[in-house]
């Protein structure tokens, strides 16, 4: 079984082949073109040129028509997307059967489908409650539903896009074991990741992508980690060496802050946190374990049910965004497009939206356009925000430049506390190194930084202290060892 991708624009002239019963890992940074490539394979995107060839069980070659998920499904290719494609208002079984039944046939006989699913679940070890609604499931369960969806259609080729992003290391191991079993029965797998460790542990062959080009391909057993990293990032891997901070007095204290779990959040369980001047506190954990609630409390978007926040010399029961700002809490939001900028407004305007009251922004309610422009020019230069200019819409900036804009806005006011929630997510290597450097510089100037990240490597390389979040509870760990932090992330006592 072979596949070929001809020349493609978003992903540039990439050829790939996948053999029967093989696990091919597609490795690359965010934006390297991995997901684009797979979306074209699956017909979600239409390739500008090039084609997908599939050999069926009898060895006949088929060319998939572009842009049609239906064709990929008929060729028995299944894809598990990084962002789940599940309808949350429907049950598990409805989601799995969606598109497999004739739409208008009266009466749905589900017994055969159920039996098949039960068998599949038993065989693969991936179990999900068939009649529960998706919105009631945890992320881990949702992921299993995604895979079951593909297996139910008897896929021969399964594409997994960053399947472990939302799993604990232990859950991830379970998933890999299940998939290994299925590969043994003839399934072929393409596995997309930017985590080198799991790629080395799990794949048969590795293809490395960078900036939309294939920069290397090798058999996993002969692979060399340093060489792969060079292929991924294009140059020597010079992540900023961790330097220790010099912690001073406490600038922020969370005192038994509790939020009851809600429909969309795990809540917080008596969270206790002391942040001192001049340190970076890393919050590790699998996403969905209360990090967003913690960030919400610190940003002033969520009101705790109980507990107190001590900041700027005051003890408060809750922050508002305005109180956070006035008490010196600078916030780098997780979703920079959703919370960080107003895309339709100019760069200059976005740089001041957190301090509209200050005298260099307004006079008697009127904007001081001149002063704003000067400010924007200075900050753009200092923080290297590149784009079509300070008067053009922020929407025209790239993700990295949007993040630099937000950094400029936050750091310019010299906040005592900085909340950095997933600050490098989706950024390329250079941009994320720049963000890391800025955070370290802010710490060295005396700020206390809370770094929330799913990327354990980022925490390990930046944080002075590490806390692990699981099920809404926060636990400090002295360990800097992956395995023991992984245990904590999974909710096991160290």
């Amino acid at each position, binding site marked *: 079984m072979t596949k070929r991708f001809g020349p493609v624009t978003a992903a540039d002239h990439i050829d790939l082949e996948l053999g029967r019963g093989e696990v091919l890992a597609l490795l690359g940074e965010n934006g390297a073109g991995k997901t684009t490539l797979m*979306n074209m394979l*699956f017909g*979600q*995107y*239409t390739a500008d040129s090039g084609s997908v060839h599939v050999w069926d069980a009898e060895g006949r070659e088929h060319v998939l028509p572009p*842009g049609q*998920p*239906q064709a*990929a*499904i*008929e060729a028995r290719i299944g*894809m598990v*997307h990084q*962002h789940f*494609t*599940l*309808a*949350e*208002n*429907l049950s598990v079984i*409805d*989601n799995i*059967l*969606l*598109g*497999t*039944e*004739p*739409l*208008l*046939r*009266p*009466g*749905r006989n589900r017994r055969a489908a159920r039996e098949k699913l039960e068998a599949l679940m038993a065989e693969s070890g991936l179990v999900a409650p068939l009649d529960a609604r998706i919105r009631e499931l945890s992320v881990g369960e949702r992921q299993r539903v995604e895979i079951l*969806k593909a297996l139910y259609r008897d896929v021969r080729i399964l594409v997994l896009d960053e399947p472990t992003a939302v799993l604990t290391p232990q859950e991830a191991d379970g998933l890999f074991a299940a998939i290994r079993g299925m590969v043994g029965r003839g399934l072929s797998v393409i596995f997309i990741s930017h985590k080198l460790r799991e790629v080395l542990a799990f794949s048969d062959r590795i293809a490395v992508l960078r900036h939309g080009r294939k920069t290397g391909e090798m058999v996993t057993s002969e692979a060399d980690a340093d060489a792969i990293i060079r292929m991924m990032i294009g140059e020597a891997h010079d992540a900023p060496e961790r330097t220790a901070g010099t912690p001073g007095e406490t600038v922020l204290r969370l005192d038994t802050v509790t939020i009851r779990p809600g429909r969309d959040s795990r809540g917080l369980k008596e969270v206790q946190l002391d942040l001192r001047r001049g340190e970076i506190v890393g919050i590790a954990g699998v996403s969905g374990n209360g990090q967003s609630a913690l960030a919400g409390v610190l940003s002033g978007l969520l009101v705790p049910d109980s507990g107190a926040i001590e900041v700027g010399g005051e003890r408060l029961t809750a922050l508002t965004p305005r109180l956070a700002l006035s008490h010196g809490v600078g916030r780098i939001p997780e979703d920079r497009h959703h919370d960080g900028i107003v895309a339709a407004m100019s760069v200059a305007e976005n740089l001041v939206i957190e301090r509209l009251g200050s005298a260099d922004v307004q006079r008697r309610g009127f904007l001081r356009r001149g002063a704003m422009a000067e400010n924007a020019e200075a900050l753009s230069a200092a923080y290297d925000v590149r784009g079509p200019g300070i008067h053009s819409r922020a929407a025209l900036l790239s993700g990295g430049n949007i993040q630099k804009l937000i950094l400029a806005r936050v750091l310019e006011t010299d906040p005592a506390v900085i909340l950095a929630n997933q600050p490098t997510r989706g950024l390329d290597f250079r941009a994320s190194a720049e963000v890391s450097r800025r955070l370290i510089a802010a710490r060295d100037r005396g700020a206390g930084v809370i770094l929330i990240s799913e990327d354990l490597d980022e925490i390990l390389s930046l944080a002075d202290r590490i806390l692990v979040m699981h099920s809404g509870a926060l636990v400090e760990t002295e360990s800097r060892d992956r395995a023991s932090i992984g245990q904590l992330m999974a909710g096991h006592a160290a």
Partner: protein
Amino acid sequence: MMDLLQIFLSESFWAASLRIATPLIFGVLGALMCERAGVLNLGIEGIFVAGAMMGWLVTYLTGSLWLGVIAAALAGAFFGLFHAILTVPLGLSQHVSGLGITMFATALMSFTYRTAFPQVSTPPRIEPFRALDIPVLSDLPFLGPVLFQQTALTWLALLMVALVWWLMDRSALGVAIKAVGDNPDAVNAQGLSVYRLRIGAVVAGSALMALGGAFLTMSAFDAFFFGMVNGRGWICIALVIFASWQPGKALLGALLFGMFDALQVRLQTMAGAIVPGQVFLMVPYVLSIIALILAARKADYPRALLQPWFKGQR
């Protein structure tokens, strides 16, 4: 108090409630189908006008009531298709497009009517649907007059409740429609067409809405007047939230609404001397706002409502 009791015991009150509810049943079911698929259809008010006018006109020209009903449904489907094209593949603002469809449909129907009947002092009339006279059943005490002396369109409305319920809750198509209103990516990833499902649901829903309009000219009255729809479409948009997008509750909401409206007419004749008549005329609109306020807090909107979806983009 005795008077109120008398009202509730009278057959005519319950018959009137069901009659008043009929156009709303069509309208709420139609809005429900559109919104379940993720498309708000503010064209509803104009689609009511289109159904009222086209149903009446075709009946007037051909003498066939059922041809009129079909014409009304087709007119609704046409304007629904228009709205669907603007909002689904083109992804334009559902609010503005809907209002545009309402204005366009209303203006087109008014223009057509005026052009066809330039200067008439009394509006031309048709022979409307008559109450069905089913042997035995119609003669049942109480139930006979309430249920079995309604027109065919009221029965069609009740039949549609069952049909839409079956479609949405029991068929694979309904599951797909609900999925496309929750997460279009889920539908696309399973090889179904987001566009076709959404467009289909909007077209079918709009045809249903138009039948609500047709009821006005072909069953409740026998002629077309400007302004006869009078906000009924908007009321349906409020009721569909009250009904949590469920056909059964839609029927219940429309019936409750019909009851209050029938009650207000009766109270008006009783209390007309003390309270100005207009107070009663306000009742339906005030009720709709109250229903909306009651339902809004816990309303579980389809997650993808108002969200355009484009093929090949996230």
